[in-house]
């Protein structure tokens, strides 16, 4: 029996958060939902997901700050991060967001669910 993998979804848009989580659960993933960076950090203290789906532009803690905090925590070093965002990838690259070795993919909104599921599956295999 295969182990159920866990994906944490971090997005400040409730519709995106709920839909993505629901879709992932329908595709046999466990999900943890967080509406911002602070909630994400709190949840990471409780449980470590296999993949973190992270929106770049959120109120409060910036993605860069969140990435830096995750990088500092050795227990989180195996978490794969996928950006799921409306921000242009070149803009994210200039902001240094893609420099982290934990960031494995960058999905621009709008995206098809197939694209997201493929990215998660690929990240799980890394």
């Amino acid at each position, binding site marked *: 029996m295969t182990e159920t993998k866990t994906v944490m979804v971090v997005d400040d848009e409730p519709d*995106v958060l709920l839909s993505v989580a629901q879709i992932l659960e*329908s595709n046999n993933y466990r999900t943890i939902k967080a509406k911002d960076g602070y909630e994400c950090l709190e949840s990471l203290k409780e449980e470590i997901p296999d993949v973190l789906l992270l929106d770049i532009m959120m109120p409060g803690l910036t993605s860069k700050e969140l990435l830096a905090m995750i990088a500092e925590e050795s227990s989180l070093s195996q978490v794969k991060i996928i950006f799921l965002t409306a921000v242009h990838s070149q803009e994210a690259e200039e902001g240094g967001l893609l420099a982290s070795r934990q960031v494995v993919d960058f999905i621009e909104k709008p995206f098809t669910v197939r694209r997201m599921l493929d990215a998660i599956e690929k990240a799980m295999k890394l």
Partner: protein
Amino acid sequence: MKSEEEIFNKIIEAIQDIGDIGATIDEISKVVPLERHTMSKYLNHLRADGRVSYKQIGRAKVWFVSKAPLQHIFRLKEEEKTYTEKIFSRILSDMPEGVLILDFDYNILFMNRYLSSLYNDCLGQKYYSAFFGYSHDLTGISALIDGTEEEVESHIADKEGRNLDIKARRVENPDGSFSLIAIIRNVTETVRNETRIRNLSELYRLLGEAINRSYTIDQLCSAILNDLRAVINFEMGDILIYDPDTDLLSSYAQIGYPSEDETSEVEDWKRAIAMETIHNREVFFFDCTVNNDNESTIAQASYRLAQGYKLQNVYAIPLRTKGDIHGALLILSGSQRTIADEDRSLLEGISEVIAGGIAKIKAEEEWRLKASVIEISSHPIFMTNREGKMTYVNPAFLELLGYAEEKDVLGHSYSAFWKNGSEDVVKVVYGTGSWDGVLLAAKKDGSEYKTRLSASLIIGKKGPLQLVAIAEPEERDRNND
């Protein structure tokens, strides 16, 4: 005993009767029989009221009736003024607004320091000529002279192009005549700022319009250069668009160049400036009077361009959105016409709007390109909203189901075209994100055949957007055979 006011009036009448050359105290005493010292006391009272004034001629004082109020204060030497007159004259002279006194024939009787600094000394001249270069009044002051108005206000440009705010009224003089007092403010700067704000609003409106209306980057760039030139006075300008894949620049718009002077050398210099600006990703400002010793490529190209066109400034601004660089805006100003700091700031700010417009058109072009792939695809493709209403179909879809036009399909429920499904595909896709399976495609003519459908949900910034599905007819080939 006569009242003091009666005596004052008699003295004024006496001075007027003696004539324009003025009256000595002895001449006045012959008409108004008062002892010399008493007469002197009355005259000094009248002077203090501003109703008479005197000129010192030799050892004698020659008295005149003041035609213009305040006028006598400025005729006196400093040592002849009373304390109040000194304070008053200083306030009037140093007022940060112009004070002008005219007689009834538009002659300037008095102007304070504020006006002298603008027009030099033009006492005695017709004010409409001295200030405006006109041969008659156009400021409405004539209405005061003919008595139809007590006070007038006007806003008018003087002969130097300064914008003046004029507020004038008529005042009664001691001799019963009238003078005109005008308060004049040079509001050129205020008007300029207001005009600039208006122009800026107009420019942003035009830019927005250009971005919304332009179907191509060429159209957008040409419209923008025209609009910019209407607001910021520059001689020549270019917008060059950069292709990062080939590292090449293309000229998309030019304005102001004399076509016969456009040589390949000039083009090379401009491209060198634009390319350096793009690679450096920062603005470059060249002033031919200060930058000549800079040996960088961009400075040398600017120097040559400035020499060729007798330019004062070359200003190059990268056109960039946050992520991408799209090109460069070149603004060239002629000799003796420096691009002001505020215009440079404006151009930098506007460059982001221009870059945003270019990015938008590029994205639209890319979208149209991708859309054309879907349009020519032989696979039937359709989209539905959350309610399952058809929102998009490609030509292959119409062909598969035998419909001639999109309007026969769009807005209808997807279930009108797909049958025998044991489950609601739209519901499943919005719940799980995707669906794969076989359905019966229901053609317009009533025939049906099996079709494999592969559907996925599209998620946008705010949540689920659309279902997109690709159909693969399983039996069509067989049926066609």
